[in-house]
């Protein structure tokens, strides 16, 4: 029988414990669910985020790299053109001189001086001008040095110019420690050959090259075929020293080659290099990789930060949401289960009620006959005694005792069947408005005398704002009296006839419902029994003292009024029963 109710009461009274227990049972199921929700909630946005960032990063880097490289290339190309043009123009100037004057004119110092001054008007880069015969004898010279008459027949440059017709030297430091280079051209006429040579100040293309600035570290410089600096390098590298870094050179006349190389110090540079057309000099533009791709590194850091923060946000959010979803689902499942259980229990209880009323009713008929027979026997005994046919004897006394015991037991049976019939009664209560502020004191007054007799202090704590309820006053009275009687029994078993306290109270709850409580300081109910107290036929009272139906009847009555009963109890401290009922909702004027 207990299984019918204990579960129900566990759920209503100790609902949270039961739910937790149920969670424990279903844990693997929820864990799997949790895992799959969490996985998809993290993976989908995270993969999307990473893909977006990854693609963005890739395209950003590509375009940045290509634009950076293009800039460097353009600078190399522009400057090569300018230097080439400078060299070509100087060569053309000298070529013009060579072709405009006869050898005899050129050997005339005055004419040569005139030519030099005209050349210097053309370009301030011309420092001097010299004329050589085919043997390499410096036959005429105009310029700051005393070079006339010297024999250059064995010099490599003279051999080269005689052979190829044109020569441009590498840069060298002249006597005044100023960087120069020379251009020499040969002319042949009527089996005679001569050469003019001019020293060119490099400051003009030094300016061109050395003034190149890209970002913080971008610079340009010239190297000759052997890797000797032909211009100063801003980041270190003096004129005519060897470039400590050997860069990968493009093939001659093959355009621009870009590369990224690391120097001995571990610094990476982006290089763009190209050979000049007019001279085997390598024009190099380089920029520290860190500088060239600075935006790229910044972007990388920002992206990494976004990925980290975004990832953390996604994971955090997923965790929070998943927990919330799971908790909600667990709650809903528990709710569903509880509802299902309640329906089953309710229908079982209804069946039980019907069955037991049937039994009780049928048992009442034989009880009635037994009662009649017992009365009859008593009457007959009296008659026999009156007639003197039965003399008083111990046997007769025993017989009479047995008879009274039968009467007692029939009455006991009758009590049980009546309690069952009350419990299983099918009729619906007659609802009407019940003003608790008047009703509770009335009912309490009924037990006042009993409380006084047992030395129980009876007090009432009824709030002035306690609303009326809608219910069957008779049934509500039955419930209250039942609770009072139970409370007084509990008090008596703990305190005897001194020190008992019984408080009845009522008030408005936060949710607009009415709570009526009956609190005692009696012996309390242990947790095990608390689960069973509303079950039919559960009683802790001695045999014959209680049917175990009182509280289950109360439970049914309050349930029909749309409320519920709760119990809170602690052994040897006391018990509080709380009845919660919906407040009356009819219009206020109606009494």
């Amino acid at each position, binding site marked *: 029988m207990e299984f019918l109710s204990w579960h129900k009461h566990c759920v209503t009274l100790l609902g949270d414990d039961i739910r937790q227990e149920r969670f424990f049972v279903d844990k693997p199921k929820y864990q799997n669910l949790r895992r799959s929700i969490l996985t998809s909630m993290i993976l989908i946005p995270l993969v999307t985020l990473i893909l977006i960032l990854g693609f963005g990063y890739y395209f950003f880097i590509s375009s940045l790299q290509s634009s950076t490289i293009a800039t460097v290339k353009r600078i190399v190309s522009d400057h090569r053109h300018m230097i080439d043009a400078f060299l070509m123009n100087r060569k053309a100037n000298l070529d013009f001189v060579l072709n405009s004057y006869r050898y005899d004119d050129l050997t005339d110092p005055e004419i040569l001086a005139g030519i030099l001054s005209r050349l210097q008007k053309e370009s301030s880069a011309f420092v001097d001008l010299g004329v050589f015969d085919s043997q390499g004898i410096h036959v005429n010279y105009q310029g700051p040095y005393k070079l006339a008459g010297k024999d250059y027949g064995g010099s490599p440059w003279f051999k080269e110019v005689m052979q190829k017709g044109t020569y441009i030297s590498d840069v060298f430091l002249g006597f005044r420690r100023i960087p120069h280079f020379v251009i020499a051209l040969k002319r042949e006429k009527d089996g005679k050959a001569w050469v003019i040579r001019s020293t060119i100040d490099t400051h003009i293309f030094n300016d061109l090259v050395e003034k190149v600035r890209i970002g913080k570290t971008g610079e340009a410089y010239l190297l000759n075929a052997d890797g000797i600096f032909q211009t100063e390098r801003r980041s270190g590298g003096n004129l005519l020293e060897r470039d400590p870094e050997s860069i990968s050179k493009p093939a001659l006349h093959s355009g621009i080659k870009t590369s990224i190389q690391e120097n001995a110090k571990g610094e990476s540079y982006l290089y763009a290099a190209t050979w000049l057309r007019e001279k085997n000099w390598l024009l190099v533009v380089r920029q520290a990789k860190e500088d060239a791709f600075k935006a790229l590194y910044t972007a990388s850091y920002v992206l990494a930060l976004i990925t980290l923060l975004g990832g953390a946000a996604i994971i955090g959010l997923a965790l929070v949401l998943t927990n919330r979803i799971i908790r909600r689902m667990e709650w809903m499942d528990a709710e569903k289960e509880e509802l299902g259980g309640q329906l089953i229990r309710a229908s079982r209880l209804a069946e039980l009620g019907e069955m037991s009323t049937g039994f009780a009713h049928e048992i009442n008929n034989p*009880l009635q*006959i037994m009662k009649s027979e017992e*009365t009859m026997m008593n*009457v007959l005994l009296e008659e026999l005694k009156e007639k003197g046919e039965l003399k008083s004897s111990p046997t007769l006394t025993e017989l009479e005792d047995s008879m009274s015991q039968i009467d007692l037991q029939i009455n006991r049976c009758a009590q049980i069947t009546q309690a069952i019939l009350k419990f299983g009664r099918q009729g619906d209560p007659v609802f009407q408005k019940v003003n608790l502020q008047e009703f509770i004191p009335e009912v309490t007054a009924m037990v006042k005398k009993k409380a006084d007799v047992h030395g129980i202090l009876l007090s009432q704590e009824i709030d002035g704002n306690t609303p009326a309820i809608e219910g069957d006053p008779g049934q509500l009275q039955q419930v209250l009296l039942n609770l009072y009687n139970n409370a007084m029994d509990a008090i008596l078993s703990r305190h005897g006839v001194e020190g008992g306290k019984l408080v009845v109270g009522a008030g408005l709850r936060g949710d607009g419902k009415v709570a009526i409580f009956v609190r005692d300081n009696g012996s309390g109910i242990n947790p095990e029994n608390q689960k069973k107290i509303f079950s039919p036929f559960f009683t802790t009272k001695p045999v014959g003292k209680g049917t175990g139906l009182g509280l289950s009847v109360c439970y049914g009555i309050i349930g029909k009024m749309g409320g519920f009963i709760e119990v809170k109890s602690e052994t040897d401290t006391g018990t509080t029963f709380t009845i919660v009922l919906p407040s009356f909702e009819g219009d206020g004027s109606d009494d």
Partner: protein
Amino acid sequence: MEPMKIMLVDDEERFLSTTKKLLLKKGLEVLTAASGPEALELLRTHNIHVVILDVKMPGMDGMETLKAIKHTYPLVEVIMLTGHATVESAIDGLKSGAMDYLMKPADMEDLIGKAEEAFEKRQRIEERIRMAQMRKTMKSPREILKEEV
């Protein structure tokens, strides 16, 4: 004054016989009927003052029998004997004209007590009827009805 004539109606044979003996010993006149129709038949042939009527009987049940009795013999007082301790069935009985109800298993003293109350009531009513008839001041439909009884 004539003694109370009481009729027990119940489908339990043994209850009828034992209770009859008991009531006879108390000096009452007792008739018994095991069913509703039998009770109505006895009422037709006997002047019965009080009927103790079981609510639950096979065939014609207590409530039907009660209605039939009150319809035909309004002066007969009926006490319902119910095995069902609900207020509702008692109220239904009282609404249909029963004077009182007893819950099974009922004490014999209670039974006799209630029967005597019912008999007294019946006698008071008959007394008033007699007085009214004697005065002949006015004839109400009810009195005409009672004359026909």
